[in-house]
């Protein structure tokens, strides 16, 4: 016999056994719910009341109570007795539930359509008062509803009253044919708007394309400038100029699109070949060609040394010159035993563990060392008493590391990442904010400030501080630049002040680091994703131009297919990326940046940290890089500490 009993059954069973004869007749009866309406349509903020009754098997009304519940409570609210209020446009579901005394539970669904607010306006945001004969100008209609929301789900019908003067193409551009005046009408639902545009004679007699170059490398951003002139040779400032490019890549064996040009005239190519840039206005056009050669960025990379950690996963690292002049590193451990390892890396060919600090934790996710090399801070997650926080260590003698203090005030939920800057620790409190803790006296750490966003569902993953500016990575809230002592916004550790922020749509923002290009003067925040896609790490590196911190713009990316970005380091004009299963990546970020740097051949080197004796053998999972005295140190989750060196010698083409 194979019997089954559920967790809650014994007391119920006794009850059921005793009541079995009664239960038979009771359960034979089938109840049903009748709702006054199974579909309702409401406007936003409109209310209505639903009613329901329960019938027995013979159709007689019972006194069994019904209760209403919403499946989208933030969009359509319902009280238990059926008072409905529409909160947000869309289609939703309410259900009503009743239970018979015998435990029979029945449910009825009610569909709720909450209408979108009516359209209030259509505006042609880029329509000029005048256009030149023969030119084509976008109109960019913008639709708003009565609640003031921008709407992109509404068709806009554009008509024009005098098609011999101008027409509108399928993509909302006005195409000017001859002089005259036209009235353009935009209609979205019941809202209508008009704009009068005058088509005037085209004065442009010449279009000149300057700038550019005869030859450049893949990834070089080349600026072109087209100037339209009238018969007198004067520039026509408002001439609509368009840029395009066509390509003859050297590799024409099914090659994909290989170059792009922005409408500000900046051109970049991914693959070598002959490219022709075309500038046009009206019926005039002009061209200029450029030969693109291989970037030749690839360099040899060689293993210097490695300290394989076989028994546990490794987390972050920090490398520093100790107060005794020797070189040291510290690495953390992940989902392990709460240990941090201190290494002597003076001879990087032979990193040696010289001390181990064990704390009550399962994960020491982050490790950082003060600028003077005397204070080390490690973070704790998985403490057995659930008081995680920080452990502040005296690493003046890394052979004999001692504890200055522990600090867990308001950090008990776990600290994932930390940074040390100017005698302060910036510590994440379990994904919601970062606290700023003074360690001017490391035996007496104390809170001086805190930074937390106010958005609904805000979350944070990392913080990095350079020149008094904290760069935090906030998942869906993107990158925040915060003045914590730089002075640009009057901020300080006790008074952090936002300088600017940038959100990208994926919501995967995991790490961020600043970079100022010596070549261009542009200031970037380089942001790395972290994401699991079907259980495999993915994501890429975003280059956000923060030169004007109030108007940041994402301009480039570096994306290794089928691997996942993680932590970053910058040294000179090279970006070092721990790219999880993609190993260590070294990228040339010199000059202007635009497009996909990976496809442009800007990768200088990569190194797969595979080791047969790793905790997970032969499986690179690079966590964090740091350049130190000419070598690249990086930690690998599966194998420990690695030291490599990028050589000056170019990699021969045949090896690529």
């Amino acid at each position: 016999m194979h019997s089954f009993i559920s967790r809650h059954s014994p007391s119920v069973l006794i009850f059921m056994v005793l009541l079995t004869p009664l239960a038979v007749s009771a359960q034979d009866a089938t109840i049903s719910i009748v709702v006054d309406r199974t579909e309702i349509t409401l406007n936003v903020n409109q209310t209505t009341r639903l009613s329901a009754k329960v019938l027995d098997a013979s159709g007689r009304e019972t006194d069994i109570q019904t209760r209403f519940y919403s499946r989208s409570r933030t969009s359509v609210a319902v009280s238990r007795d059926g008072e409905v209020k529409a909160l947000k446009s869309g289609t939703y579901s309410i259900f009503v539930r009743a239970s018979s005394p015998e435990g029979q539970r029945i449910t009825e669904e009610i569909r709720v359509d909450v209408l979108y607010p009516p359209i209030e306006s259509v505006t042609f945001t880029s329509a000029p008062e005048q256009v030149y004969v023969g030119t084509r100008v976008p109109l960019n209609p913008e639709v708003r509803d009565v609640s003031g929301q921008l709407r992109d789900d509404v068709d806009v019908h554009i008509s024009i009253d005098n098609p011999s003067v101008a027409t509108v193409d399928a993509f909302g551009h006005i195409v000017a044919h001859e002089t005259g005046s036209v009235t353009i009408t935009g209609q979205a639902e019941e809202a209508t708007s008009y704009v009068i545009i005058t088509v005037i004679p085209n004065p442009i007699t010449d279009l000149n394309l300057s700038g550019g170059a005869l030859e450049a490398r893949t990834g070089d951003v080349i600026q072109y400038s087209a100037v339209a002139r009238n018969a007198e040779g004067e520039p026509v400032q408002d001439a609509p100029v368009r840029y395009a490019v066509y390509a003859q890549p050297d590799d024409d064996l099914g090659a994909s699109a290989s170059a792009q040009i922005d409408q500000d005239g900046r051109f970049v190519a991914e693959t070598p070949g002959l490219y022709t840039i075309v500038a046009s206005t009206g019926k005039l056009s002009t061209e200029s060609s450029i030969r693109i050669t291989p970037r030749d960025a690839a360099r040899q990379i060689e293993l210097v040394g490695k300290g394989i950690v076989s028994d546990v996963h490794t987390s972050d690292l920090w490398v520093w010159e100790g107060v005794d002049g020797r070189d040291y590193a510290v690495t953390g451990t992940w989902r392990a035993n709460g240990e941090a390892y201190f290494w002597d890396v003076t001879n990087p060919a032979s990193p040696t563990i010289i001390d181990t600090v064990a704390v009550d934790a399962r994960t020491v996710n982050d490790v950082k060392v003060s600028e003077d090399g005397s204070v080390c801070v490690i973070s704790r997650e998985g403490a057995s008493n659930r008081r995680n926080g920080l452990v502040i260590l005296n690493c003046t003698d890394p052979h004999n590391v001692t504890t200055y203090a522990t600090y867990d005030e308001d950090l008990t939920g776990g600290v994932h990442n930390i940074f040390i800057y100017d005698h302060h620790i910036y510590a994440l409190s379990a994904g919601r904010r970062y606290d700023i803790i003074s360690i001017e006296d490391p035996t007496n750490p104390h809170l001086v400030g805190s930074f937390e966003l106010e958005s609904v569902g805000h979350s944070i993953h990392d913080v990095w501080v350079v020149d008094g500016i904290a760069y935090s990575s906030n998942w869906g809230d993107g990158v925040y630049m915060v003045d914590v002592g730089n002075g640009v916004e009057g901020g300080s550790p006790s008074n952090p002040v936002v300088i600017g922020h940038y959100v990208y749509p994926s919501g995967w923002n995991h790490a961020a680091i600043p970079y100022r290009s010596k070549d261009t003067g542009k200031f970037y925040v380089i942001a790395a994703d972290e994401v699991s896609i079907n259980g495999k790490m993915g994501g890429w590196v975003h280059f956000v131009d923060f030169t004007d911190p109030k108007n940041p713009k994402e301009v480039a990316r570096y994306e290794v297919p089928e691997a996942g970005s993680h932590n970053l380091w910058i040294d000179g004009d090279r970006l070092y990326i721990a790219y999880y299963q993609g190993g260590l990546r070294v990228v040339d970020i010199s000059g202007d940046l635009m497009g996909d740097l990976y496809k442009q051949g800007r990768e200088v080197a990569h190194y797969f940290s595979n080791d047969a004796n790793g905790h997970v053998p032969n499986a690179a999972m690079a966590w964090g890089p740091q350049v130190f005295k000419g070598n690249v140190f990086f930690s690998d989750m599966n194998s420990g500490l690695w030291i490599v060196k990028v050589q000056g010698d170019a990699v021969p083409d045949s090896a690529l």
Partner: protein
Amino acid sequence: MIRKNLIHVILLGLAGWSFLTNTVSAQDYYVYVAAESDDEVALLRFDGTNLEVVKTIEVGTWPNEIEGPHGLNVSPDGEFWYLSIAHGFPYGKVVKYKTGSDELVQEVEVGLFPATIAISEATGFLYVVNFNLHGRMTEESSVSVIETETMTEIERIPQGIMPHGSRMSPDGLMHYSASMMTGELVEIDAITLEVVRRLKTGSDPEGPNPKPTWVTPHPTKPLVFVANNAANQIAVVDLEKWEIVDHYETNKGPYNLDITPDGKLLIVSYKGAASTGVWDLEKGEELALIPNSRAVTHGVAVTPDGRYAFVSAEGVGGEPGAVDVIDLSTKELVASVDVGKQAGGIIFWKMTE
């Protein structure tokens, strides 16, 4: 369909009667336990002598982040198990799995650091306390209510600071949990989804917060028992009077509770004492104190026949977690097995013979 269910109920009743009268028959007991620091759930089988890990189920979706599986429960029909995943960006989630095959069915985002899960047989809803371990300990949190067929969060009921220990009344009509940092027992109507009553759980309402961490209702009497973790007490609350009628002074750190189906024994995990207490509820006396095999005792699940208590123990640092089996007749630890790190949430699934 109804008739089929009735027959099923009768069979279950007879089977249950058999369990209650024939205590010597060989049984296999199945239990799920979550390892919070290893992102895995283990299915265990105990045959009365040997305890073994039948299967380890990896949970969570981020291989390189620890997501923290915490609370567990099994649907009343035994067809599904539910798991709270504490860590998110920032919200946690509840995930529904099929028992036996352990395939993921569906998941739903809830509040901050969801922890203990209760399921009402009467309403069909799942109730999970949003413990918000990550927040400042001054932030009010909530209980999320989930309609389990579609895994839709239908309500988030404000409750108090750091709610924990979600359990239903035997009739499934009331939900009880403790607000750890407000020191309260909170009663929620499982149908209207409204807080009905609140009660300070300390022996001195003006005294220090006893930090209650768990509530378990008595199976037949109008009583609930509250683990006052910081006060080393069990508060006995009379639901009809809505007042504390007794306090049991306990060992250090009473944390989770469960009661045998006959209502005679209360099993207490002592998180601060690495041990489990067995209390006689009629006498209000502790009958036995059984050391656990790891330092941090966590959860308790009593088998439906009242013969055994399965107790999870977290361990410290790199130590594996463990599940101990206590024979409630001899009050002795009779079996133990290692599971993943920080073993916490534990729930009984089924008995077979």
